[in-house]
């Protein structure tokens, strides 16, 4: 057998194998070139289940942000069973490719599409205009239209509770925050964390490091290490992996889980996890479509609605701090979203909220300052 005939046989075999595999696969990955998608098997005639699709910015395997969304999707499957058929596409880059993926999902018959990252906003707005009878749901965005709804978690509520714990547990009065990208949502989390800590320990400072990515475990590790080297002994992050928590464990410091329950990763370092329960929202959204009561809105879910929570508080936390966390939690259930209560000064000393004032939705949505006590700047250009 010559080299050429060997190569020919191998190529034919590979082509055959891939055709068979594609015919059997249910999940899709975004393809690099516009190859024709294989035709799905025809569905047997019965009451059409509602087709719902999710697009994720990262891998389901991140054990953080995307993982939590996928748990929500699975919650929908568990609740609605046969009435719904879900699918998802992971690792969709934010940008032009996202639009192609969304259009592809609409073409496949999905009647409701969830986009789980801020960067999908422009693509969702564009595609929503072209398909007025399909429902679009965008997480953490700020643009709506008659068939495009925005939903967001009040992530800063559990961040505030984590701050209370951090303020109570720190011995060096220095906390650390590993931040992703400088958008208002992240600034809200940093500020809430610091304010929570200052409510039990006014001397506390938060050191801040930006890694310019939502998910990069080696970089998160290095950022956490840099913060620890500078004296931080309790860390929080809003990046998507367990790296910061594990670095804290390695150095004998404390940290928190973010987006999902990370208590298993660091038995000594873990103080609590800021959890997201997306299934609460996703089952509501699917229910809206099935009951034909869907309407556009800017939905916010916090501790009160069951959308997020602060769980698995460590036994190392003293009783008085736990009580403060419970009190703050109850306050947030009774007054959803009221984390930023005056008087609050920003880093330059200017008063941004007077005593007795509470930050409204506009101020929170456009937050562009860091509170006094945060050491670190907002990068000037993104």
């Amino acid at each position, binding site marked *: 057998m010559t080299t050429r005939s060997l190569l020919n046989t191998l190529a034919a075999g590979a082509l055959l194998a891939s055709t068979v595999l594609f015919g059997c696969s249910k999940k899709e990955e975004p393809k690099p070139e516009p190859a024709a998608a294989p035709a799905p098997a025809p569905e047997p005639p019965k009451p059409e289940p509602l087709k719902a699709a999710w697009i994720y910015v990262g*891998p389901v395997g991140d054990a953080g942000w995307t993982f939590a969304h996928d748990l929500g999707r699975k919650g929908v499957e568990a609740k609605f069973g046969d009435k719904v058929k879900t699918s998802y596409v992971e690792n969709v880059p934010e940008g032009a490719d996202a639009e192609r993926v969304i259009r592809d999902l609409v073409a496949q018959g999905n009647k409701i599409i969830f986009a789980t990252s801020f960067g999908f906003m422009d693509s969702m707005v564009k595609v929503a205009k072209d398909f007025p009878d399909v429902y679009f749901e965008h997480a953490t965005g700020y643009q709506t239209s008659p068939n495009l709804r925005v939903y967001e978690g009040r992530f800063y509520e559990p961040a505030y509770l984590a701050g209370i714990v951090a303020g109570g547990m720190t011995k060096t009065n220095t906390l650390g925050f590993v931040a992703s990208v400088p958008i208002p949502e992240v600034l809200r989390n940093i500020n809430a964390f610091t304010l929570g800590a200052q409510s039990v320990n006014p001397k506390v400072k938060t050191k801040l490091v930006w890694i310019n990515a939502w998910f990069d475990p080696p970089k998160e590790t290095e950022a956490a290490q*840099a913060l620890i080297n500078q004296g931080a002994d309790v860390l929080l992050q809003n990046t998507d992996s367990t790296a910061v928590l*594990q670095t804290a464990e390695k150095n004998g410091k404390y940290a928190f889980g973010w987006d999902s329950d990370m208590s298993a990763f660091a038995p000594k370092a873990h103080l609590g996890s800021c959890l997201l329960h997306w299934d609460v929202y996703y089952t509501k959204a699917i229910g809206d479509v099935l009951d034909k009561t869907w309407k556009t809105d800017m939905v916010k879910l916090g501790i009160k609605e069951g959308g997020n929570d602060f769980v698995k508080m460590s036994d190392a936390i003293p009783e008085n701090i736990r009580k403060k966390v419970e009190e703050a939690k109850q306050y947030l259930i009774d007054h959803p979203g009221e984390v930023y209560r005056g008087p609050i000064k920003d880093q330059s000393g200017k008063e941004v909220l007077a005593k007795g004032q509470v930050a409204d939705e506009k101020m929170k949505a456009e937050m562009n300052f860091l509170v006094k006590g945060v050491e670190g700047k907002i990068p000037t250009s993104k």
Partner: protein
Amino acid sequence: MNELASFIGTAFASGTVLAVAGLGLLINERAGVINLGAEGLMLVSAVTGFAVAAGTGSSWLAFAAGAAAAALVAACFGWLVIWLNANQYATGLAVTLFGTGFSAFVGVSYVGRKLDLPLNHSVPVLGDIPFLGVALFRQHPLVYLALALALLLSWFFWRTRTGLIVRAIGESPDSAHALGYRVRLIRLAAVVAGGALCGVAGTFLSVAYTPLWVERMTAGRGWIALALTVFATWRPGRLLLGAYLFGGVNVLQLTLQAQGVQIPAPFMSMSPYLATIAVLCIISSNPAWIRLNMPASLGRPFFPSQ
């Protein structure tokens, strides 16, 4: 002072992954084969190493398994590129794509799992010295192995007969073939050895540096290692310098941020790459030096005359 010591220690750990992968690629490229699949090899070894560590609890077995997995994939790459004379660049890219996808697929059940391995290492007596101990002697064993490896490779390539033969094959495989050396076998050995080292680097990442598995966790370090090898003009000493410089600047910009120094965001991300390119280009800017060190047959297929 303690902060400086911790900084040095962190920089060393950060640069080690790049150093070990880069040394593996150096072996490849000195023999004349360019393996763009470094990223894929590192991912395959990362998932294999993590799986073995999770299953057996042994760090050494994990490293061995990771190196073996990467060596296996590298061997397939070697066969395609050396015997079937496929285009080295395209095949390397294919290995990267394969490695990324395969590791993600195999690793799905390992996401969210924890390893029961010791997190802190310290050299028995030296690790307790006040400044130097924290800076230099509290690292994972691989950090010291990387230094030893660089010395070993320097000695091997420039002081031994076998190393001379490998370099000769990298410069002119036709001449080596005419002298009777088994060019293709030696190239395969270089590819497999280089692949195994990339595997060790990848396993270090998932088992020691950040002990977790997620898709694409190497985040481009294979590519950085490839670039480092070229910028270091294929010399082990300069490669180490570049790797630690890269790791150091990376940790430096994070440390400066933690100290409150204002740096524009894009510049922060650029700085490690800029610094490394700048330094290595300056020290290797002599054209004669480049001509002397670049393997002349790099990337070109070899056909033993029949």
